[in-house]
């Protein structure tokens, strides 16, 4: 072992031992971990945190309260983990101020762990099941999410104590070529969506000569319904930083950027803290860990343009220009930021790097499928019970993901489609549920891995409206530079809007298909090239819904407001109830002479209030499509 490698190892061991010592001290006492990532905060985690603080202060208990990130169980936020010596660490879901106070008095003061509020234990024990005992835990295999929600994102010692930055120490002792060979051998594919082999990109950047190179972490997550990158940055920022430093070390870059959208203020705050702590420990800056390698990272706040996730637009944005893509080649790995070789990787891709360097390519390839090794991280959203952030091995079927990991469809409704890959992806029907999740199978099915957003749709979702929604999104986010994306998506959006309003014309479907194909081939950047996917897949799998809209003026899902009318069924309505009358904001619901209720269609604004109100009472309000005439009115 060379001297410099020895110095690196010694420095690292010293850091780690110090961290382990501090970590051990914390873990001797009871502690409360409160998940205060953005998702937890939205559900009220800060109130829960305050309650714990006040109660523990008031009772002068010797308990540590630590803010952590997201464990991925969005449906059960806010989540809290409590450890008390003598008990396994227990996780509690849907905690509110009341439950928090109870947990302090009953568990931390007395010895009742309040199993009635508990979700799972974190370690196997004789008292309570662990996450691994639920289907979600059985099918999940956490690699980059493993520490999320368990370690303190604002304390580098927590990360170091779990073996963090060990991969960096290892990589610093290796030749850059060896690191790249390991990544290439692992067949890691970019998790930003396109699935390009990461190792090849690294090699290209490494092989391009130049005194100055850059690495950029692309954290410009913008898909509707996707929050994987945010959760990773908020829950385990050092994992990303370590990956970025290793990538810089491998390609020979001296400056790095974290391109984070400004809409992620908490992620930015936690990253700033992480950067400061890493610098203080000598893990960033001049001669990292005593080696000859110097590198630092700057945070660049993006202004939230979807197209800036495209790498050439992202570079333009950092350079101070409008975020508009340019033609590739030259690829950024050859000529990127300020004309210098630039390596751009997604947050998730970089998060895998420390694990691959640490455990080796063979370990990584042992997970997932031969062509898409590793795991896939998804933000499961929509009409599914177990919403949240999940990590499953590649090759898991969509059915397993939705029905086992996600615990099926909400409210006993019927599954209709799954929208995968965001605005660049597609909608897959029931018949496609046995497709295995990997880059190639999904592309073949017309969808796309994308960055990992999954929206589950049920019988109440109109597929034309879903396609219109996504197209409106890309149309709003199009930079406007190239003809196909600027005008082509606008033409498609206008056609779809007309169809949902009942103004569809024969031939519209064919025109949509023609335009979609040309936009896919003709657009300048990835945004335009994939923009028609939601339309293409919905026409492919749900053509009958388009036809019903165009030919019959009927919306089969009873969703398109212009194609439905609200009525009250006289058979079901009760003379004794007028809940619907009160719920109507525009006085469209009235009481007939026979005391039953009815709706003035000309006044009705189709807000759904009466239907929602009546559903649990008499279920008498019904929607009709195509629009029907008011009963008793000719």
């Amino acid at each position: 072992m060379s001297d410099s490698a020895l110095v690196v190892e010694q420095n690292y061991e010293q850091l780690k031992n110090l961290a382990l010592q501090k970590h051990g001290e914390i873990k001797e006492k009871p502690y409360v971990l409160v998940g205060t990532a953005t998702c937890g905060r939205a559900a009220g985690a800060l109130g829960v945190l305050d309650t714990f603080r006040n109660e523990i202060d008031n009772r002068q208990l010797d308990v540590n309260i630590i803010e952590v990130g997201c464990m991925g169980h969005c449906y059960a936020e806010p989540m809290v983990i409590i450890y008390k010596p003598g008990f396994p660490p227990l996780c509690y879901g849907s905690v509110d101020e009341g439950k928090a106070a109870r947990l302090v008095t009953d568990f931390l003061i007395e010895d009742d762990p309040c199993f009635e509020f508990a979700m799972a234990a974190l370690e196997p024990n004789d008292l309570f099941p662990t996450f691994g005992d639920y289907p979600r835990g059985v099918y999940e295999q956490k690699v980059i999410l493993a520490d999320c929600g368990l370690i303190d994102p604002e304390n580098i010692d927590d990360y170091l104590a779990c073996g963090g930055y060990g991969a960096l120490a290892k990589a610093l002792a290796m030749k850059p070529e060896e690191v790249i060979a390991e990544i290439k051998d692992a067949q890691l594919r970019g998790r930003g969506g396109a699935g390009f082999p990461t190792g090849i990109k690294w090699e290209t950047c490494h092989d391009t000569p130049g005194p100055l190179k850059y690495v950029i972490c692309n954290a410009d997550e913008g898909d509707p319904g996707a929050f994987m990158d945010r959760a990773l940055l908020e829950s385990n920022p050092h994992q990303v930083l370590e990956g970025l430093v290793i990538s810089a070390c491998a390609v020979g870059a001296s400056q790095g950027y974290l391109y984070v959208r400004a809409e992620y203020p908490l992620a930015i705050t936690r990253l700033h803290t992480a950067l400061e702590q890493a610098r203080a420990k000598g893990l960033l800056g001049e001669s990292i860990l005593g080696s000859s390698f110097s590198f630092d990272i700057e945070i660049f706040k993006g202004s939230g343009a979807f197209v800036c996730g495209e790498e050439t637009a992202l570079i333009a944005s950092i350079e101070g220009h409008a975020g508009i893509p340019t033609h590739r080649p030259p690829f950024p790995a050859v000529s990127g930021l300020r004309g210098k070789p630039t390596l751009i990787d997604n947050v998730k891709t970089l998060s895998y790097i420390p694990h691959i360097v640490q455990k080796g390519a063979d370990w990584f390839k042992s997970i997932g499928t031969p062509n898409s090794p590793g795991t896939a991280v998804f933000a499961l959203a929509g009409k599914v019970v177990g919403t949240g952030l999940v990590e499953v091995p590649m090759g898991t079927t969509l059915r397993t993901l939705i029905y086992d990991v996600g615990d099926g469809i909400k409210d006993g409704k019927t599954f209709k489609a799954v929208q995968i890959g965001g605005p660049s992806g597609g909608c897959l029907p029931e018949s496609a549920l046995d497709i295995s999740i990997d880059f190639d199978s999904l592309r073949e099915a017309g969808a796309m891995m994308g960055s990992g957003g999954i929206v589950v749709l049920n019988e109440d979702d109109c597929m034309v409206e879903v396609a219109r929604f996504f197209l409106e999104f890309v149309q709003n986010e199009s930079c406007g530079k190239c003809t196909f994306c600027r005008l082509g998506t606008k033409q498609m959006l206008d056609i779809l809007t007309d169809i949902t309003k009942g103004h569809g014309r024969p031939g519209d479907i064919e025109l949509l298909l023609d335009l979609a194909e040309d936009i896919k081939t003709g657009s300048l950047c990835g945004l335009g090239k994939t923009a028609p996917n939601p339309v293409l897949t919905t026409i492919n799998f749900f053509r009958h819904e388009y036809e019903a809209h165009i030919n019959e003026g009927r919306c089969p899902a009873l969703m398109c407001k212009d194609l439905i009318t609200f009525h009250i069924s006289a058979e079901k309505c009760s003379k004794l109830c007028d809940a619907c009358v009160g719920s109507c904001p525009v006085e469209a619901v009235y009481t007939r002479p026979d005391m039953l209720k009815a709706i003035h269609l000309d006044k009705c604004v189709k807000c759904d209030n009466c239907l929602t109100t009546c559903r649990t009472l008499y279920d008498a309000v019904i929607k009709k499509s195509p629009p029907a005439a008011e009963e008793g009115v000719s």
Partner: protein
Amino acid sequence: MSRKVTITIDDRQLTVPEGEKLLWAALDNGLYIPHLCGFRESERPAAGCRLCFVEVEGHPNPVTACTEPAVEGMVVMTRSPRVDRLVRTAFELIISNHRLDCANCAKNGDCELQRIAKARKLKLKLTRLRQLVKETPVDDSPQSFSYDASRCVLCGRCVWVDHNKAKVGAIGFIRRGISRKVSTFGEVCLTDSRCTQCGECVKVCPVGALTFKEAADK
């Protein structure tokens, strides 16, 4: 740098400088390829108008000629069913957002859109697409020329000469998506901007968006 390579475009053997973009190689040799945003002096092709598609042997899909460098032995075809289809759609999309009314346009007869339509036998009329043109006021504040945004095809030539040749910086692209347009800072009229009325931008406009007033009077 000035090494020459031999390429074949539409069965014609041409000797062109190595790395020369196919668009210029073809145009210099009398082979027409439709284009609007292509601008020889510009260092990096904008590649925004998406009209100059050609087939290159060995490429799975048509490529834009303005971005594709000439390589020894390259075989190029300026026409194919796929190319024609893309060009037709791109052309129709562009005219769907371009106020046609050729009879009352100063550029009538000297318009790049008319030239493309003639070369590729395309109609200067919308058949399958919707009209997207919004009526916008014409800025005729400059003495010698006027700017009609509803005829602008966003090729960006005017912006390039304004920034790189005239070095004035009076105009630029503003907004994005369907709202993208060429405008002055703060969207004031040209005489209230830093425009020097040098007219360089008017000379490069391929359509009737920026036109000299005397031409309109003819």
